């Protein structure tokens, strides 16, 4: 009864709305995503130096990503539940394959080349890891016991280590956080979390020991970017200059001197937020953050509305991962987090992460639109 009234609240008045509902599309989420992608075009046009081909490629990717999202939205959540273990295993095997056969790209092994297309298993594992953990934990009574926690931790650590070895610190971080988010939603005790945090803090020096030189350099640079203004600190300094010079209202669209004159590196990809901040100022930044917050809110609402434990855990985790994307990217660009290769979700130029993100939104829509309403 309750559910029915709620569904009437969102009853779209138009033909398009009906069509979208038939497509298993969640309209508020869809609107949020379309808004974000439109913003992406706007900023990319400026950040790429008004390069139309960049926009066309981005449009192709977004189109593909939306297509994948709608396909996934049509699949019933039970199907995801059923294939979670298989997909996870496949993902881990592919990661191993990358390590063994992977071709060298950008000094890091991330790709599998299938001849006609290149595939990045770490992107797939971003979704399959939370699916696996959710599937595993939803089989037991929540909150999980120590034994299950240990198993879950192992399931997270395997892909995380494999990705970190590639090495791709950013993706490893996202995979770890998406898995951990599932455990958190599953009801991990606060006390245990505090204890783990302490242990992790103690392990930091050990972790430092195992980090690659360039990863160490990034962290050091983050801690003191001014020490090497033309070398390692250049990214962060130029990015801060871009953001700071934007001021309250920004320099206006296409007005970014930092990006247009090439002072800001990677202005179309990881550092696109700096361009946005320079052109649209604090007010624009607040607007973007609110848009992200609205998307997150809607996703959390979907998670709460989900009808089984697996769906809830998965939805919660995917939402949190999305937030981690936003936070890590912006945090890095504004200089409060170290530089790790995480794009600004939905905005940055670049294919694979966009597709993965849309896939997770597809799963969220699937969870929301396949709810079985209780008969009155």
């Amino acid at each position, binding site marked *: 009864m309750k559910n029915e009234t709620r569904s009437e609240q969102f009853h779209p008045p138009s033909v398009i709305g009906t069509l979208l509902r038939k497509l298993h599309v969640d309209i508020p989420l869809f609107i949020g995503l379309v808004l974000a992608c439109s913003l992406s075009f706007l900023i990319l046009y400026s950040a790429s130096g008004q390069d139309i081909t960049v926009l066309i490629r981005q449009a192709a990717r977004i189109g593909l990503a939306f297509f994948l999202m709608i396909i996934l939205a049509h699949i019933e959540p039970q199907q995801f539940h059923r294939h979670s273990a298989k997909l996870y295993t496949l993902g881990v095997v592919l990661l191993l394959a990358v390590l063994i056969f992977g071709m060298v790209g950008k000094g890091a092994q991330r790709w599998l080349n299938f001849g006609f297309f290149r595939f990045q298993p770490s992107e797939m594992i971003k979704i399959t890891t939370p699916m696996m953990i959710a599937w595993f934990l939803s089989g037991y009574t*929540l909150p999980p016991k120590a034994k299950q926690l240990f198993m879950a931790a192992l399931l997270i650590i395997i892909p995380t280590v494999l990705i970190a070895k590639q090495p791709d610190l950013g993706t490893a971080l996202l995979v770890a956080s998406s898995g951990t988010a599932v455990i958190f939603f599953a009801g991990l005790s606060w006390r245990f979390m505090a204890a783990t945090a302490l242990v992790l803090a103690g392990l930091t020096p050990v972790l430092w020991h195992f980090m690659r030189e360039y990863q160490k350099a990034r962290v050091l640079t983050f801690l003191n970017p001014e020490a090497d203004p033309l070398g390692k600190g250049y990214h962060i300094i130029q990015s801060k200059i871009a953001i*700071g010079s934007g001021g309250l209202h920004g320099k206006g669209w296409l007005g970014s001197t*930092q990006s247009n004159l090439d002072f800001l590196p990677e202005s179309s990809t990881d550092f696109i937020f700096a361009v946005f901040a320079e052109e649209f*100022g604090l007010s624009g*930044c607040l607007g973007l953050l609110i848009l992200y*917050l609205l998307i997150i809110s809607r996703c959390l609402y979907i998670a709460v509305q989900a009808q089984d434990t697996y769906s809830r855990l998965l939805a919660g985790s995917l939402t949190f991962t999305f937030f981690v994307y936003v936070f890590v990217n912006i945090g890095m660009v504004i200089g409060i987090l170290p530089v790790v290769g995480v794009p600004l979700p939905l905005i940055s130029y670049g294919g694979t992460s966009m597709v993965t993100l849309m896939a997770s939104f597809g799963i969220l829509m699937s969870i929301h639109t396949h709810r079985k309403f209780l008969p009155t």
Partner: protein
Amino acid sequence: MKDPLAENRMFLSRTVAIFAIILILMCGLVGRLIYLQVVGHEHYSTMAKSNRIKVVPSPPTRGIIYDRHNRVLAENIPSYSLELIPEQIENLDKTLQRLQKLLDISDEKIAQFLKHKHQSKRFDSVPLLLRMSDEKVAKFAVVRPYFPGVDVHARLVRHYPYKDLTSHVVGYVGRINERELKSLPVSEYRGTHHVGKLGIEKTYESLLHGKTGYSEIETNAQRRAVKIVSSDDPEPGKNLHLTLDVDLQKTAYDALEGHNGAVVAIEIKTGEVLVLASRPGFDPNPFVYGISSKAYHALQQSDAQPLFNRALRGQYPPGSTIKPFIALAGLENKVTEFHHKLFCPGYYQLPKVKHKYRDWKTWGHGAVDMSDAITQSCDVYFYDLARTLGIERIHDFLQKFGFGEKTGIDLVGEKAGLLPSKAWKRRVKKQPWYPGETLITGIGQGFLQVTPLQLARATATLANKGHVVTPYLVDKNYHFKAGRVYPDEQIKLDEQNVDDVISAMVNVVHGARGTARRLKKGINYQIAGKTGTAQVFTVKQEEKYNKDEVTLKNRDHALFISFAPATDPQIAVAVVVENGGHGGSVAAPIAGKIMKQYLMPEVKTVDEK
């Protein structure tokens, strides 16, 4: 086993917790954004601007120097130079080695470059090779892509077409050295590599240099210019017109051939310097693009001292050329009369002193009056006059004609000569003045020293009947801008006395027994002159001066002062020929040629060889 409701509640609370965490972290982001965009906005705006705006100096074009007939003495010619921006070169040593091999650059040029690099600002273009030949430009053009940060620039390079002829007047520009870098106004000399080092180039540096312009250029991260934001055009340096006449200068310089010496010619009515020649000169052009230390050493060590400006800095005993002034001093001080006669036995003795002061004419001139004494250059007459006057009156009178002090010509480095007095000797030599020293001062020997320029000026002043002439090289209008004002001085003289002395000087050239009588040939005006032969080498008592026995270095200096026309004086010329021997035979013809060319330009000067 499973409790869906409890799970549902737990999940809801977890979702709320996550949402709270997300909100808090978002607030953290917003806080940081406010810090950067509101608090730090001004700071980062400035940094963004300095990131993209580069201030580039546009050096002004140096003023051109002309002679009085608009012939170019110093010009700027376009030439190619090989320049490096050290900051854009990854391996400077290797690049220099490769360039050295490719373009055959001397080690010295490399060392010079490294020195200049050291002095230059970041991202400044530092020249390695100036005045590249077309062949070298072509050679480099082929391999240019392999030399990032190295480029060929077209620059204006100073050129002196008359080379050694005008080197001592015009001077030259050279690379700014470390000492000059400290004293020059930094902003005015950004982008300028050269500064006047000598002569007019140095004296009028501020006028010739002009005003540096600046353009604010928007650059990208690769420092490539994107567009010009604003620009302030440079103000080119002022062109200078010298009073010098290159034709006369050439006549003087050529006439000095085979000797070291100096010629100065001044226009009497104005003080304009027509000739300021010092031989030997030197080619100033190598100094512009960096003379090799070997070549410089050779110039410095040469016995002929080509770098020494004899006209301005050479200090010589005036010899008999001082006699007209001593004569005038005697007349003005009323210690003698123009017609006063004296018997010259060929020597002069002070009372109670055995020492004989010799006349150049061993057997004496016999009975001479002042006119004869000047015409025949009788020494004994002037020993006597000098003794009567005393050194103090001689000093005071000669001082009025500018001896012993700088003429104030607009050239740097002028020497003042030496006009001795009792006070001077006590102060400097810590000795009393001896009467014998007065005698030899009377014939322009002893301590007395003058520069060729001083001689010319004193002659001009005499010709001008006491109206002091101040020599200058650049149009007077510029002097007032440069803060210099020339005194308009008149020495109080009895006109009759001046006319008497001048008439005696006319006799030097036109009289039957004049020491420079050869000059009167083929001229339609009268010359007033006075020969001089300055002893460099002291001949001992009872010894005879034998020209052939004396080495060239110790041979007498030949001098001649003159002005013409005697009735309406226009040009005054002073000539000093080092070790030239007799003034009348060596120095006088040079002055004669110049005056003839100046006063009778229609008659082609016939070489009197």
